[in-house]
């Protein structure tokens, strides 16, 4: 048990280091131009350039540069945005995180509930028009760019039909903290939640249906039916419970990626000041320290979530528990 936990931690550390190297290489070793100019931002003065070069050690070998960067990100946490007049990057990210977490958690609740319902119904009515219809709907969800869907939602609810009874409750774009005004928080986030959830409802309902259909031909499903259990119980208690294992591992990764910045497009379209939007702003001013910090932040999040998924996995599947 202890060795397996240590092994797991070691792997985590390895992936984290790997990601930091990858991010570092992307930003500082891409062939083409001087990273100093990238850090300093557009039209930086020669003095700024010189300061950046010394501060990040760009005149020294790559490993030193890497160490410097990691120190700035995790130890001293004084990575500075030159574009944004010396604002510290790490606190800025910590401030934006609650917005992203609110957005992603709500969407996750919606997509898990909807996709389980859709997947189970489709699998139970396999081959019927209901099944085909639900799966085609899922495919449409998968095929819709989220930023465009957000725009259309805004168009309908903020402008075209905002005056109608259906959408008059929709507040303007922006974010309201949960602690200040729970109802406002809910109202402002409901549409972003739904928009973000659409893609994942599509993916998850299709994955779950496929798993449930595959599990139908398993021997233990036949045993369950031979025991005289009702079809609903067979499908939910035996089929769904077993299929949930893949579902959960998928969920952990997607959730982590979204919290780690994958929800960027939704945040941008709905004007939510989260981590993703921060990255977006960094994009528009070519604020590399900011972007790099957010990417690192997301990677850390993904790796931690990966470990969490593995633990849940062990809870869900006794075979994994013993195998580890």
């Amino acid at each position, binding site marked *: 048990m202890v060795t397996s936990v240590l092994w797991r931690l070691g792997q985590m550390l390895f992936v984290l280091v790997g990601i930091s190297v990858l991010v570092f290489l992307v930003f500082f070793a891409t062939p083409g131009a001087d990273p100093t100019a990238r850090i300093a931002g557009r039209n930086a003065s020669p003095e700024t350039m010189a300061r950046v070069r010394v501060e990040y050690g760009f005149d020294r070998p790559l490993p030193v540069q890497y160490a410097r960067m990691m120190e700035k990100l995790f130890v001293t946490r004084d990575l500075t945005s030159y574009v944004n007049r010396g604002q510290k990057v790490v606190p800025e990210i910590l401030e934006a995180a609650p917005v992203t977490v609110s957005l992603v958690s709500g969407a996750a609740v919606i997509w898990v509930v909807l996709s389980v319902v859709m997947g189970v119904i489709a699998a139970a009515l396999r*081959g019927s028009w209901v099944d085909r219809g639900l799966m085609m709907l899922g495919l449409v969800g998968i095929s819709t760019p989220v930023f465009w869907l957000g725009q259309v939602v805004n168009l309908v609810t903020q402008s075209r039909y905002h005056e109608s009874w259906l959408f008059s409750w929709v507040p303007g774009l922006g974010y309201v903290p949960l602690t200040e005004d729970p109802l406002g928080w809910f109202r402002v986030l409901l549409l972003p939640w739904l928009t973000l959830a659409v893609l994942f409802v599509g993916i998850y309902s299709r994955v779950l249906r496929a798993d449930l259909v595959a599990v139908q031909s*398993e*021997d*233990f499903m*036949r*045993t*369950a*039916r*031979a*025991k*005289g*259990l*009702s*079809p609903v*119980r067979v499908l939910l*208690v*035996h089929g769904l*419970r*077993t299929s949930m*294992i893949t579902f959960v591992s998928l969920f952990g990764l997607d959730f982590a990626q979204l919290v780690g910045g994958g929800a960027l497009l939704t945040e941008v379209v709905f004007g939510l000041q989260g981590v993703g939007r921060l990255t977006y702003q960094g994009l528009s001013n070519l604020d590399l320290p900011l972007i790099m910090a957010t990417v690192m932040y997301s990677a850390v999040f993904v790796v931690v979530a990966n470990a969490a998924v593995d633990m849940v996995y062990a809870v*869900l*599947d*006794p*075979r994994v528990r*013993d195998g580890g």
Partner: protein
Amino acid sequence: MEGDTLLAVRDLTVALPIGGRLVPIVESVSFTLGAREILGIVGESGSGKSVTSLAIMGLIDVPGARVSGSVRFRGRELVGLAPRTYRALRGREIAMIFQDPMTAFTPVYTVGWQIDEQIRAHQKISRKEARSRTVRLLGDMGVPDPEQVAGRYPHQLSGGLRQRAMIAMALSCNPALLIADEPTTALDVTVQAQILDLLRGLRRDYGSSVLLITHDMGVVAETCDRTLVLYSGLVAERGPTGALFARPGHPYTAALLDSIPPLHGPRPKRLPSISGSPPTPDERPAGCPFALRCTHVHEACAVRPPLVACGEQDVACVLPTEGRPLPPRFVPEFCA
């Protein structure tokens, strides 16, 4: 076999849609099973043994499948029974155990939980009572330390223990009929013998009849009172096991018996095998389905032979009616 008839199957036909048309997998299978009797159904894979048993359980759920004929259990017609009524019967009066005990238990629940589940599906008793019955059953099935085993997950048990647990689960509601689909195929030989012992003891201890499905003539000889030989979804021969082994009436039965290695006497260099493979259901010839592989084939085989009485058995072959039945063969000691 004396005693009242528990199960009477008449002209059972199961047709599944293959390539857009209904193909009869099992055709006009008839047999009866008395109380406390063990009937063996033998055949190669693809002969329709499992489909027959699933049809009796009402578990054929391929969309578009058609089950016709009659299955009477305790005088009650099962074909066309309402799903809800069937469900109350399954697991309670007719139970089934499967070939591979590894995959037949749901991997994410403990063995005890799954046995409890079956008990509680049919009887309104508390969790605690169900568990104590589960532990008792496991003990009866020869499981050492049953309390602990009940708390184990399927993958933590050996194949033999799993199959014992499977049988315990099947017996948990005292079924009158137990269908065992190749219960020993996936097990070691020694464990196989123990499980067969267990099955033989059931009629004494639980009063259950057993329908034993197998491809192994040795298992049949050791265990079954009567035997039904299926070939390509049709009955080839049926009758008391002893008679069938001593004087097989169908060339297929005889060929099956020849392929068992003898226990005594000189060992043949090579066991005789039946050349070729049985026809798939959609390519089954209009005449005798075994004609293609039979050494006795002649013109009369172009018409499908009906089951006729031949000694103690019923045989679907023209040879006995033509007055030239197969010769009696050497009877292995273990079934004399």
